């Protein structure tokens, strides 16, 4: 016992020098964890105060949030199911962000991806399910990819602001979807809920064995990891980040920035398009207005909270999935309105944006 205490005391006495080195060497990484973590904790405290103003006990609140999001196996599955589309739609914002582009039109790419995937399935009525599924995924990715490519091309060739154009394209995508679903592609039997024909039970991609969570989660994880490798461990990704850092410098060193923009926009749209395909092939079984559920918009929030890092998108999407999953319990047990979840998301967003100013300014992490 005593020797142990002595050892640890000794360790403490030598710690400052060793620790300072460690903190400085890994300062950037620690910042990436510490600052968003602190922002999140701050947001939760403020939300607790907000809820207390309505006469609810904040301790109850935190408990129900935990229980609804992560407290049981069912809650975990609920959380992961909600996180699955968010990983993919977040990548739609995070990838172009490497180039300094702010794309907020993931919702549109999701809708077009869903529509493309459904069309593909309906044109292949006799193909074996695996072929249909692969074709649907390809169609969804190409459809969504081309949709965001439009914004990239408008930016590259016409100087149109990509943020505005991608947002406006969401409304166009929704109008196209409604037009087709209520017109040419409508299943005449869908009386009060205009929808396309169903893709067929055999073509549904189902859930991950042993869970309720659909395969969209796995697609999301693969896409996020692949994006991370692409951005941080390939010359393509390096070129993209150079262009994102300083576009003139990138041009001077001979990078073809235009090609980079178009390629990255296509890949970003493909991710959201794949999310649309998954919504059709794993959830809805057909396309209708239900698909416009706002995953594209929540994805933007995820991407910003993850500081546009494709790998960080995964935990953040799970966190937001958890917040959404616990929203129901907050309504039912605490009698809070649905909007309370939006309030929390808003508070988190503000805290994370504000905390951006702290990077590189935390004294004990700085290299002197």
């Amino acid at each position: 016992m005593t020797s142990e205490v002595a050892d640890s005391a000794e360790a403490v006495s030598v710690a400052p020098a060793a620790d300072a080195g460690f903190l400085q060497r890994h300062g950037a990484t620690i910042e990436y964890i510490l600052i968003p973590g602190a922002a999140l904790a701050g947001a939760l405290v403020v939300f607790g105060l907000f809820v207390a103003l309505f006469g609810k006990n904040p301790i109850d609140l935190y408990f129900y949030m935990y229980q609804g999001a992560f407290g049981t196996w069912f809650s975990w599955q609920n959380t992961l199911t909600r996180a699955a589309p968010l990983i993919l739609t977040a990548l739609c914002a995070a990838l172009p962000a490497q180039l300094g582009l702010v794309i907020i039109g993931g919702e549109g790419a999701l809708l077009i991806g869903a529509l493309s995937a459904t069309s593909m399935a309906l044109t292949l009525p006799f193909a074996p399910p695996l072929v249909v599924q692969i074709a649907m995924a390809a169609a969804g990715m190409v459809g969504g990819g081309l949709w965001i490519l439009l914004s990239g091309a408008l930016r590259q060739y016409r100087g149109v602001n990509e943020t505005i154009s991608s947002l406006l394209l969401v409304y166009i995508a929704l109008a196209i979807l409604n037009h087709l679903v209520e017109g040419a592609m409508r299943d005449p039997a869908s009386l009060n809920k205009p929808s396309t024909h169903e893709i067929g039970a055999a073509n549904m991609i189902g859930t991950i064995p042993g869970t309720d969570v659909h395969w969209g989660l796995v697609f999301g994880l693969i896409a996020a990891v692949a994006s991370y490798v692409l951005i941080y461990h390939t010359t393509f990704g390096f070129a993209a980040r150079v262009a994102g850092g300083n576009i003139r410098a990138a041009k001077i060193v001979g990078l073809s920035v235009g090609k980079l923009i178009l390629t990255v926009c296509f890949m970003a749209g493909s991710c959201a398009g794949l999310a649309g395909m998954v919504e059709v092939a794993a959830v809805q079984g057909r396309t209708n207005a239900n698909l416009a559920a706002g995953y594209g918009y929540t994805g933007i929030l995820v991407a910003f909270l993850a500081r546009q890092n494709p790998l960080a998108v995964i935990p953040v999407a799970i966190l937001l999935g958890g917040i959404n999953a616990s929203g129901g319990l907050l309504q039912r047990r605490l009698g809070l309105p649905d909007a309370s979840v939006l309030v929390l998301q808003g508070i988190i967003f503000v805290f994370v944006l504000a905390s951006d100013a702290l990077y590189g300014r935390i004294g004990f992490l700085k290299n002197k």
Partner: protein
Amino acid sequence: MDFSSISRRRLLQGSAALTLGTALGARTAAAADTTIGFIYVGSRDDYGYNQAHAAAAAALKKMPGIKIIEEEKVPETDAVEKTMESMINLDGATLVFPTSFGYFSPHMVKMANKYPKVRFEHCGGLWTDKDPKNAGSYFGYIDEAQYISGIVAGHTSKSGKLGFVAAKPIPQVLRNINAFTLGAKLANPKATTQVIFTGDWSMPVKEAEATNSLIDQGVDVLTCHVDGPKTMVENAARRGAMVCGYHVNQSALAPEAYLTGAEWNWEALYPKFLKMIASGEGIPNFYRGGLQEEIVKISPYGPKVGEAARKHADEVKAKFLATGLAIFKGPLVDNKGKTVIAAGTERGQKDPELEKMDYLVEGVIGATS
């Protein structure tokens, strides 16, 4: 579900609750005999579709042995599946009311198959023999109430021009527009209804624009079929037009301008459902009805409704209550001149043809596509 693991988790939850210093254990295990879950697609206080259900849920809350749990703004995606499951798994709900049309297929059907011991009652869907037996659908022939609103509107309008703010040209909506117009023509054969489709169920900006545009064209009585009629009612009243309400009584929003309205009467229906369950007979899987069955009702007449209008409307209402009147009967011509119901044919409320309505009757100005 694996019960052994549940009890372990419950234990963990319980201990977590204790360490947090709250009496949560007592709250989760409520003393209620029956837990009923209500799921709404919009907000509970929308002065419309969702409020009609929420008001009925509030009425059930007063019944002994009943615990009501509610969730609002649940999208028609797998989120609603998870909400149903969460109500069943975490709150012990044994009866679930997913009240929005888009919840039916595939979401509620999937959950009904997964939880065969839970009863699912869906508002608006068309349950068929192929659907799970522990699920059912109910709806009301609210076009009967719209027909009476139309009579009142036809009598009260000075210009003979009525307006209808509608969401989508789907059968349920078309049926309301047509019934309203046919009612108005009973009162004033020259009356017309100008319809504007906003394209979706909750589009307040477009609903306000449509209301203004209709009034600019000389319309002096408006009604609507959108999720929340509040926008239309308030804007029309502000512009000096009169309104007929929809879903719930909106007279509080426009006490002077409110003539009458077509309302749901879920407060009457849901207790009936509970009695059916308690008596052991169960709820029929396919349940429909109108004024006679007390599934829909009519708002009390407002101050601007004249004697003739009241008398006429009451007469027709009495016929609905007594024998069940057919609103749609031949010869009926649509607004393109095509005969849609031949002379001599009478389509009663339960006629499945009416569920497929795709036309606007003569007297309606507007198009379905």
